[in-house]
């Protein structure tokens, strides 16, 4: 068994022991506790900034490759062992039942800049409710091969293993750090913003950050 699989199994076991027979459903997870957070491969929501896109983009990080026109640019604190880049299969980062586009790797910083796609709400803002969304690493694989059904199953297993949404306070702080809604013309305009976040939160990946900010 590979080390990462062992880790996932241990996490599941610890979570089960910690929470006893607490009833959980995939759709109604409770916020993560401090103790659970220490064990989680997704440890914190550092920053979140909502955005909308005038021209929809394609989310190739899921097999169906759906289009999206809104979402959150996030910075997550993660267990670095989960994001060590490999050419073979890697744990797939999810936000609820959606795969997350990882802008960087973060294996040294432990910080992952990600794009969480979603639909817009009635007000035209990103419709995802972060307070009910658990961030977690699903099974190893290629994100482009993960179907919506795969992602839902991964969410169910993650919740049963203890994955929880971040607390309201943490989300509020992350949104405050992130700043106001960005109304962008296209996905292209996210790159320079993401590049700045890579340089700030994962400075070891300087080439990536500066590359994202390359002149158009």
């Amino acid at each position, binding site marked *: 068994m590979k080390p990462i699989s062992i880790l996932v199994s241990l996490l599941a076991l610890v979570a089960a022991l910690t929470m006893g027979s607490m009833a959980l459903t995939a759709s109604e997870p409770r916020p993560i506790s401090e103790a659970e957070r220490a064990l989680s491969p997704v440890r914190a929501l550092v920053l979140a900034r909502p955005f909308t896109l005038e021209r929809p983009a394609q989310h190739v990080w899921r097999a169906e490759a759906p289009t999206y026109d809104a979402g959150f640019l996030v910075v997550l604190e993660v267990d670095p062992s989960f994001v060590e880049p490999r050419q073979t299969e*890697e744990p797939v980062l999810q936000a609820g039942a959606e795969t997350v586009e990882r802008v960087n790797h973060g294996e040294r910083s432990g910080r992952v800049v990600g794009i969480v796609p979603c639909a817009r709400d009635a007000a035209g803002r990103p419709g995802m409710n972060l307070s009910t969304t658990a961030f977690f690493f699903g099974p190893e694989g290629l994100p*482009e091969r993960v179907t919506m059904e795969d992602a839902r199953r991964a969410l169910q297993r993650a919740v049963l293993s203890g994955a929880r949404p971040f607390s309201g306070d943490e989300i509020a702080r992350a949104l405050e750090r992130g700043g106001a809604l960005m109304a962008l013309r296209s996905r292209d305009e996210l790159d320079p913003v993401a590049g700045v976040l890579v340089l700030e939160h994962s400075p070891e*990946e*300087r080439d990536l950050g500066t590359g994202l900010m390359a002149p*158009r």
Partner: protein
Amino acid sequence: MHRASRIVSSAVLGLALLGLSTVASAQTVVNATPASAVLRGPRLIAGLVALELAGRDLPTTPDFEFVQSFFAYLPVQAALDTDAHPRWIGATANVWLCEHKDAAGWSASPTLVDVRGAPQGIAFVAGGVAANRFVLDDGLLSGQVPLGLGLPLDVVIDADGSGSLSTGDIIDGGGAKPGLWLLYPTVLQGPLAVTEVLYSGGSFLGQDLYYPTDIANLGELPLVVISHGNGHNYQWYDHIGLHLASYGYVVMSHQNNTIPGVISAATTTLTNTEYLLANLATIAGGALAGHVDRQRIAWFGHSRGGEGVTIAYDRIVDGAYTPVNFALADIVFISSIAPTDFQGSASANPHGVPYHLWTGGADSDVNGCADCSICQTFHLHERATGPRSSISVHGAGHGAFHNSNSSGLFAAGPCLLSRTEVNFLVKAHVLPLVEWYVKGNPAAVECLWRPWESFKSPGAPTSSCVVVDYMHRERASDRLVVDDFQTNFDLALSSSGGAVSFDVTNVASGILDDANTTFTASGGEAMNGMTFSNSTSDDTRGLVFDWSAADRSISFDLVPALSDVRPYTHVSLRACQATRHPLTVAELGDVVFTIRLRDAFGAAALIPISVYGGGVEEPYQRTGCGNGAGWANEWETVRVPLGDFARVAPSLDLSSLVAVDLLFGPSSGSAQGRLGLDDLEFVRN
């Protein structure tokens, strides 16, 4: 054909077509009537003798190998076979090393001008090539040319001392091809200044562009596109970009969407190629407009990107993607560095495009172990149906092929190479690679298969840890296949239909795929260590066998259609040692054997493969992937010039061969060993 007729090389045949005389008629052309010259056109010089002269010393019989490429700053030698041409015994003549001219060029301007400043006088004696070898250049000449690789030179023996190319003179070159190519060390930067520009056309359209600063005066240049791997960055290929651009290429390394997977990576290869070609008028201020040769595009990819480039090609072949700014035929070459194989043969497939593979023996990521089918780099190479080549480097890690020290080497095993060393190897090899496959430059091709032990660029790493093996296969029209093991699975029958007999032991043929998940040696596992095929759709087959402390052989009878090999230049095969096998462990060194050719008249000639530099390399002594030491079976191409057989046994008739014998055991090389064997053929280099 009468057995007195002897092989002439393809170069000589080429000369014959151009109107120059061949070896076979050498004794008569000195006094040839002008009629032949008239027949061949008034521009040509009548009665020249076309012979191979340039080459290199060999430690034992056949004493000398005629080759076409030499690295500058190393000795260039020549030899005259006075056994074949005894009228030269006792003669003294000036030997000239001249700039290459074709037949028309020499006819128009026959005056000999030596690039060394003056010719050298040579007294020819009895004793064949062994007694008539001499140094043409002791490393004083530079091979640098304004654009590309290889300074073409002709060698002339001025029979009459006229100082002019004339009837009776011997010339090596002087036709479509020169007598030799002097290569500037391929490790070194080329002659052109380079401009690098970093820009982005949008999301996943970040590009790092390298081109000759003086591109405005260089016409249309080939385009090399680089697609990086997962966790890598498009700015980490300066060593390739700056290097190739300095030799006259446009190189673009792009942001590659590798984290989602190889399909996404393939998409970004396509979109970035399209973006560059569609925006030449504006990128870099329009410097490239009109200066990119859209019909000579090469795709390079690393790891997931290395698989991605083959997927991109397959998508065009399958019609799943229709390029806008280029066509399928414009992708003339694909090279994968340590590629993954997520998609299998239906999708990750180079089809018939010329293909090349780089494999690091110490790669701890795409590691090649038997338990990881997606980590076995050779699958893609074996799927390539056209010309193909590969380079394997012991001690090279996955991350050593890019140039960023901000990322690890991803290496495991003994004798690890530094990134600097591997980067030097990459530069040394990538230039001849694209020169041959993209430009069709014949100066480069010997760099793709001549043994590293005896032919490498000055400046290449020389540590004893640097072990390099090549595989190389020509296009089908330049190969005469004796046995590729893909048909006629009976051990007693070759794929070409000839009888096969043997007394080597533990013989098996089959798909070259390790049957379990380790490299642990096991008596019952014939194909242990083989990683050419995945377990489902790949079907590369080969032969395995062993011998121990006794002389053994395998004989391949040649069917009549294969008996005349004069149009070919070499007998060729590929072979590997069986990793962790007790006989491999006991030998633990290059395995050597002897190739024998037999003709219909009972003549035979045999040459040990070690004469040309090493033997079949021992496996990289890496542990893991089961018990024992030795990584995946490492195949390499072994070639022996047919002309050397003819020189060893002058009575051998290369127009009437009946068998190729492979001789093993104490009398023929290594006392023991277990080998894999495939692609026994005659080739035209």
